[in-house]
């Protein structure tokens, strides 16, 4: 049996029935990494020794008849902007190339507490800034469905790892679509939870009011299982929501009868690939056939979201990235004469082009004379975007749309033009300013390349998203 192909829930069942061991499962995934990752390049760091030690501990627990968590013994990949104690965490940046965190992110601590087997750290666009994983300072990741194409970004390593069966599940982070877009391009399931649902402690900050960690998995049931492991209040994150966490597996019910599903017309506009629209419309038809009440709606400020996002996110990024000063940790230039010169050269040599672009853009938007015209204006438009969601959720339980206007594009195709790259996120980046959860799941193909359906939910409405996703998955 090719154990690396298992889902989390399948592997858990075989582990608890003692039909496989975690060491066998972990070896299978590690061997598969050795075989295919030289081509895919999903991982920046693989930790085979730590993984096998952890797998061994789980096998000992299982041998003793101890009850273990649904994630116990399961090989999981973690995006390399999530701090892992003692394991290099680079953010795919030269400036953190040798950074070894002295602490675990809360999600990493939760995974360890549940006896998950962390197999490695996955590639991303530098500091999660990008839509293709080509902005990694080290190397681009390739899409397992077509290695000439990008996996999407910025969690491209995590999505590619799950799609290529070199991780059973993975964690990513989503600031404007960075979980959902690569999930869509690679044909896997990705969830951006409600802002505050999952702790950001130890997630290297990009845009703090938008960032959220989420799972990338092979199916909806696995998404629920990973959410059960990582969701919840964390006193180390002051933006974490002090709300009880449901058992997300209870939402795995293939029943959407009577559910009110809104289709916002602004997500079906010029520029969308015909095959993508056809696949998404097909999924909507399936929801109708399953008994959902589908209706069209309007979210009039959608077309302003891109512009607002590309002011707000860079503004927060320019502030957050001020911490890379070459003093406390990370790369530090060796050829500076004084402190100011040190800042200039450390940051010049340590950051890549996209990060520099966003620092410049954000600094400009926050600078004296431009703050009101750009930053404050964008924050007001953010209010309108959130209001669009609030209004739509008066009438509907969920909203459905494409995850991206196109399928995965060719490597190099959008690198020369930043605006063309930014447009990749046009359908995903609305959820983050509004704080709402959004699920991406496969809903068809165009010439063999996956298309992703996106489902937006009410704040803390992850269970409804999982229910819709599960109903569609089971009906497929």
């Amino acid at each position, binding site marked *: 049996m090719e154990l690396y192909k298992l889902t989390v829930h399948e592997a858990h069942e075989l582990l608890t029935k003692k039909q496989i061991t975690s060491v066998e499962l972990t070896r299978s995934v590690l061997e598969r990494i050795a075989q295919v990752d030289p081509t895919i390049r999903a991982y920046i760091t693989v930790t085979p020794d730590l993984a096998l030690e952890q797998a061994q501990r789980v096998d000992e627990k299982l041998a003793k008849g101890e009850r273990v968590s649904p994630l116990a013994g399961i090989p999981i990949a973690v995006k390399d902007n999530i701090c892992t104690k003692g394991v290099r965490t680079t953010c795919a940046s030269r400036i953190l190339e040798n950074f070894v965190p002295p*602490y675990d992110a809360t999600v990493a601590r939760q995974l360890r507490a549940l006896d998950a087997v962390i197999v490695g750290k996955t590639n991303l666009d530098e500091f999660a800034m990008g839509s293709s994983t080509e902005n990694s300072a080290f190397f681009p990741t390739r899409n397992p469905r077509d290695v000439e194409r990008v996996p999407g970004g910025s969690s491209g390593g995590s999505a590619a790892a799950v799609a290529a069966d070199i991780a059973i599940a993975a964690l990513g982070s989503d600031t404007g679509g960075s979980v959902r877009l690569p999930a869509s391009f690679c044909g896997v399931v990705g969830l951006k939870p409600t802002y505050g649902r999952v702790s950001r402690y130890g997630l290297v900050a990009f845009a703090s009011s938008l960032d959220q960690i989420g799972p990338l998995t092979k199916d909806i049931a696995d998404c629920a299982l990973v959410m059960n492991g990582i969701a919840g209040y964390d006193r180390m994150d002051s933006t974490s929501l002090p709300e009880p966490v449901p058992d997300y597996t209870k939402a795995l019910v293939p029943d959407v009868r009577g559910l009110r599903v809104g289709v916002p017309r602004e997500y079906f506009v010029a520029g969308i690939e015909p095959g993508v629209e056809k696949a998404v419309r097909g999924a909507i038809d399936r929801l109708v056939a399953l008994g959902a009440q589908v209706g069209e709606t309007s979210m009039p400020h959608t077309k*302003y979201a891109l512009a607002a996002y590309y002011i707000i996110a860079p503004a927060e990024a320019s502030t957050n990235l001020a911490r890379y000063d070459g003093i406390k940790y990370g790369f530090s230039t060796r050829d500076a004469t004084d402190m100011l010169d040190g800042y200039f050269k450390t940051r010049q040599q340590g950051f890549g082009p996209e990060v520099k672009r966003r620092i410049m853009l954000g600094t400009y938007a926050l600078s004296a004379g431009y703050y009101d015209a750009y930053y404050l204006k964008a924050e007001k438009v953010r209010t309108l975007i959130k209001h669009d969601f609030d209004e739509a959720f008066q009438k509907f339980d969920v909203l459905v749309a494409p995850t991206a206007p196109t399928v995965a594009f060719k490597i190099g195709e959008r690198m020369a033009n930043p605006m063309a790259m930014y447009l990749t996120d046009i359908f995903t980046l609305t959820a983050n300013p509004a704080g709402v959860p959004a699920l991406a799941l496969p809903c068809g193909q165009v010439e063999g390349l996956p298309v992703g359906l996106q489902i937006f939910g009410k704040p803390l409405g992850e269970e409804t998203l999982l229910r819709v996703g599960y109903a569609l998955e089971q009906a497929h």
Partner: protein
Amino acid sequence: MRLSREEVEHVALLARLGLTEDEKEMFRDQLSDILENAGVLGELDTAAIPPTAQVLPLRNAMRADAAEPSMSVEDVLANAPRREDDYFRILPVFEEEYDK
């Protein structure tokens, strides 16, 4: 509207970011392009709209002012590019040398 070279240099100074001559020229074009796109926001009358900085219902999340264990000095300094004893070593802030 294309950003002037001086504007790009001023922003880079604020951001403490060294740029090559080529990068300055590139950012003049690219930032102008992105900011021009942001001009679409001007279509909206937002005079009466309050800004949203974050979406949570939470305000002033404070913890109790109680002492708790913190990271060891060794852990804190483990990633320091330059250290001296239990301190981060930095480059001189002023050109003159004072205590010699």
